[in-house]
């Protein structure tokens, strides 16, 4: 499943970039995130409660950042497992100064793919894509909110 989109935030690219690497900040933006810690190898370990309606799963996973070009772009890869299934994905996050924002506004573009497998994918296939898009959308809404403060 492809996940892509863009959002703008009212901050300079360099500031946004730093915050996107901050586990506490990310934990506040990820819907249902219960724990997020930076590990010694630079990756992040997270516990995220995700679900729609009656379906609920607690995902335990690892997020790895690579191809980091500060303050322009990085690749975020994640792999998680839960009682309801598995999720794997990778996305390129790209920051771009808003042409009309005089450097004070930044576009965040994300373009990635995710693969969900296990029970949730085999029986809830038609719900999974939409649920993933929703989580993604919520993440960036919260991010814009957090940054705006």
């Amino acid at each position, binding site marked *: 499943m492809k996940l892509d989109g863009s959002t703008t935030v009212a901050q300079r690219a360099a500031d946004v970039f730093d915050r996107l690497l901050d586990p506490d900040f990310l934990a506040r933006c990820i819907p249902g995130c219960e724990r997020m810690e930076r590990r010694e190898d630079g990756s992040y370990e997270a516990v995220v409660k995700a679900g*729609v*309606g*009656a*379906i*609920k*799963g607690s995902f335990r996973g690892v997020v790895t950042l690579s191809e980091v070009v500060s303050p322009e772009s990085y690749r975020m890869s994640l792999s998680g497992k839960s*009682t*309801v299934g598995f999720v794997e994905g990778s996305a390129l996050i790209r920051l771009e100064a808003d042409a009309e924002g005089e450097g004070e506004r930044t576009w965040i573009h994300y373009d990635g793919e995710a693969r969900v497998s296990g*029970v*949730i994918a085999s*029986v*809830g*296939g*038609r*719900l999974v*894509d*939409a*649920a993933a*898009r*929703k989580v993604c959308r919520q993440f960036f809404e919260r991010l814009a909110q957090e940054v705006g403060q």
Partner: protein
Amino acid sequence: MIPAKFEYAVPETIEEAIALLKEHGEEAKVLTGGHSLIPLMRLRLARPGLVVDLRKVPDLSGICVNGGEVVIGAATTHAEIAASPDVPRMIAETAQQIGDPQVRNAGTIGGSLVHADPAADWPAAMLAARATIVLRGPGGARSVAAETFFRGILESAAAPGEILTSIRIPASDAAGAYEKVAQSASGFALAGVAAQLVLARGAIGSAQIGITGVAEHAYRPAAVEKALAGCAIDAAAVGAACAAAADGVELLEDIHASARYRAHLARVLAKRAVLRAAGRARAS
């Protein structure tokens, strides 16, 4: 296929049921027909700590007509509604097309509405009938218009701790129809369109449409309803009016049907439902 461990409660009054939900919060799930919840529990996609079985609560089931308004109890099964002489024909027709006989005999309208599956049949019919959904929680009862009840995938306006008690369908002399293309394994709608309309001067006077299975939740295509007002009853004119049936919504897509195909189905089924409803309105 064996559920995770859970507690089971069988309250005998609605107040007792609401108190149990309040006490156990998100851990508790309500059971009536069990045709959405039990499969999820068996797959362990849902692991409620407590299942509150409403089947012993009186007055939750049955259909009554009150000054023209039809009130359907939340625990009324699809089969009971399909066989009822008291509900509008479009409502009975929707019930008849849900799932298979087992689902219709055990599954309930309230359970289906609260579960809020984006491909369930009832939401389309509720929107077209301009139904009101009655919820009861610790703070008392409140009514929600169908139009604002469906919020997203498996998400409705029912708050945790609230129980859907009945559905009220306003009195109407409109004729209606429900058209669907089902996913053949599950019986869920790839797309389903309910239409209800009244005629005026030989044309369509006003139409109310509900569409399910196509987007993250069922919706009313306002542009189609507008185009149908005053529309001549012929296939070409109705088809043109229904062209916007899937406009402006984020389309669902899965291995069974692409977004484009779902949009196509929405347009075709809207046209069919409207033409059939118009035929019934003429005949009556």
